[in-house]
């Protein structure tokens, strides 16, 4: 069939099962937007900033497990996407980012709105392409989606010069991908699996440390089965939240810098650490030489390069987490309960529970999260966050029980991620209750995406924990820099309620603890547009536990 490159791109997206893309037009993608005018099978969502497009595609991918797609014009459009691409890369989120490029005869001449997109995105994407012949387009699209979603998922960038969009050719979509140099290993090695089985059988104080890989492999059920069969307590990373039900007696919550005391103690004390789809990030390990010092380490990951990158591993298993866990479940015999170990953990849980102090008359941010949890826990809820204290409190004080219900920027820690990601999540899961917990700093970084939400009648709930500070930075200044609050005071914040109102969203302000619940209920009842609730919270509340940078994770400040 004879098509232009632009038509062929839309046809290819359709063939890949893409039903939504987030984008923003500009000069070199005009031919593509023109083709979209006629072909509406793939729904295009007009964002208000390209960063919003990338984060929306990312939020959509996390909520659905599908590949998120975003689109921008050349030069500034493409560079605006880059934070979102880097964000997806750090968190291994499947995404395809399409950028327009100047026409091939203009490449390399500093042409108007030219930027070297493949050069810029090389270190922040899983792979990238610059299409120079229209005949390559169908194959490249096919490969890009395959690479984005297989192996360790990640973002793939496709840079397409303007003349490619307008050139006609004989279009045929390939039905197979064959990349000889890319064959991710999915089956765990049987010998390694049997070594791991023995180690699990022999362990007296085992702990599972589960990361985002469990979620991207859709392996939460297998994780639960293994943990329960062998009576192994489970701690998750920030990215692993939702991979294991926090309501289970075996749950230790999150570990690391803002982990629970009992998770950090358990990891420090364990004799076997089973790392599953996790990468020993410095925010998790703290002082690395003192991380799980007595433990034998099993590391299960799809990415061989993660094995041994940060810590020495005793039993590496490279493979798809779901398949490896299944093999382990089938091989291990049921284990006796580690009575003493479980008792020890129970004692830590009793002694050092997650807690905060209520003070009369002032809303504590943790309280807002708890109340939201109370009211949302029986619904199909997705929690999204911005970055900072809001993110940590949302991680700690909401109880997650299912995968893909927690969406947060982990590896890159991108302020401004939450609102556009919430939009993407709501597009992907229209019936879910989507809540974005935000800080008053972060929410202003992509506030323009409120328009995208309003125009599409997305009933997302934005709960701003407004402490008039760049709270997390202020916390570090308080604890590490002698309370020098250098450039972290946001007392000149605009009126967020008026902002919501101006955008056509519903804005509310809550200043008293007794009003919190009612406001949340009211926000939940609105279902035809976004709601922003400005919770005026305690200004100098800190996130505890806190492991000061460079310390061992059991050397935390608990309050």
């Amino acid at each position: 069939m004879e098509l232009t490159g632009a038509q062929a791109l839309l046809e290819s997206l359709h063939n890949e099962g893409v039903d939504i893309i987030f984008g923003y037009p500009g000069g070199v993608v005009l031919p593509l937007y023109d083709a979209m005018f006629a072909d509406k099978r793939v729904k295009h969502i007009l964002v208000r900033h390209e960063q919003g497009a990338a984060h929306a595609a990312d939020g959509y991918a996390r909520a659905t497990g599908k590949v998120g797609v975003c689109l921008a014009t050349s030069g500034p459009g493409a560079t605006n996407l880059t934070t979102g691409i880097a964000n997806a890369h750090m968190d291994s989120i499947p995404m395809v980012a399409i950028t327009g490029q100047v026409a091939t005869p203009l490449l390399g001449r500093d042409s108007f709105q030219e930027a070297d997109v493949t050069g810029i995105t090389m270190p922040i994407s899983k792979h990238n392409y610059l299409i120079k012949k229209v005949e390559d387009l169908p194959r490249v699209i096919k490969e890009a989606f395959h690479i984005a979603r297989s192996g360790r998922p990640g973002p793939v960038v496709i840079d397409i010069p303007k003349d490619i969009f307008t050139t006609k050719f004989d279009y045929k979509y390939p039905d197979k991908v064959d990349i000889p140099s890319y064959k991710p290993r999915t089956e765990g090695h049987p010998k390694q699996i049997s070594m791991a089985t023995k180690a699990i059988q022999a362990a007296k104080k085992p702990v599972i440390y589960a990361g985002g890989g469990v979620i991207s492999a859709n392996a939460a059920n297998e994780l639960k089965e293994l943990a329960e069969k062998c009576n192994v307590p489970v701690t998750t990373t920030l990215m692993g939240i939702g991979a294991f039900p926090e309501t289970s007696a075996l749950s230790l919550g999150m570990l690391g810098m803002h982990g629970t005391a009992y998770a950090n103690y358990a990891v420090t004390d364990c004799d076997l650490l089973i790392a599953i789809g996790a990468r020993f990030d410095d925010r998790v390990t703290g002082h690395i030489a003192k991380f799980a010092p007595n433990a034998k380490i099993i590391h299960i990951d799809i990415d061989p390069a993660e094995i041994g990158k940060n810590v020495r591993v005793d039993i590496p298993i490279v493979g798809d987490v779901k398949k490896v866990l299944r093999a382990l479940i089938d091989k291990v015999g049921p284990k006796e309960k580690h009575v003493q170990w479980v008792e020890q953990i129970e004692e830590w849980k009793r002694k050092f529970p997650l807690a905060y102090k209520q003070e009369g008359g002032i809303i504590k941010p943790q309280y807002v999260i708890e109340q939201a949890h109370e009211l949302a826990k029986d619904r199909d809820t997705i929690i999204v966050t911005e970055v900072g204290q809001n993110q940590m409190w949302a991680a700690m004080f909401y109880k997650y029980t299912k995968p893909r219900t927690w969406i947060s920027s982990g590896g890159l820690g991108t302020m401004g991620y939450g609102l556009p990601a919430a939009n993407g999540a709501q597009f992907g899961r229209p019936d879910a209750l989507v809540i974005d917990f935000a800080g008053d700093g972060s929410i202003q970084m992509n506030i323009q995406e409120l328009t995208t939400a309003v125009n599409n009648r997305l009933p997302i709930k934005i709960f701003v924990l407004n402490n008039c500070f760049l709270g997390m930075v202020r916390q570090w200044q308080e604890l590490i820099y002698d309370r020098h609050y250098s450039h972290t005071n946001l007392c000149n914040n605009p009126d967020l309620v008026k902002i919501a109102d101006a955008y056509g969203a519903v804005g509310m302000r809550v200043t008293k603890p007794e009003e919190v619940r009612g406001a949340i209920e009211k926000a939940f009842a609105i279902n035809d547009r976004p709601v922003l609730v400005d919770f005026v919270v305690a200004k100098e509340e800190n996130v505890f536990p806190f492991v000061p940078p460079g310390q061992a994770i059991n050397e935390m400040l608990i309050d």
Partner: protein
Amino acid sequence: MKHTISVIVENKPGVLSRVSGLFSRRGFNIESLAVGTTEDPNMSRMTIVVEGDESDLEQITKQLYKLIDTLKVFDLPAEKAIQTELVLAKVAASEKTRAEITQIAEIFRAKIVDVAETSMTLELSGDESKVDGAIKLLTKFGIKELVRTGKIALQRGSAEL
């Protein structure tokens, strides 16, 4: 410790910058890098000499494999490989020194590829110790210009990839 690694990659635009970018990004030190096509025009072979311990080598190998265009990566230690490098050295020469330089060239089986009034250019190839040895001897005459291709290597024996 120095390692010589061979990387077979798809012969595609940008692949060299993918590889070199990876090394600088991850803080691995490249001592030399030589690249060219192989018996199959769709593939290139890079020979990279890097400094690092065993665990660095392991990380480098794995990170290289992670690049979508990488087909194969292997370590080629000296005892298992033929390693060689090509050097052009322009050495200061006069009536008086020309004979001695020619003699050194003969000993090292170097070719004299250019002779001018005040210089001679030698083309020399061989493994590291031979090349370094020759350069050391030539230094006393004054090396005006020197260029090295970087090491290339193939495994010994009839094994193929």
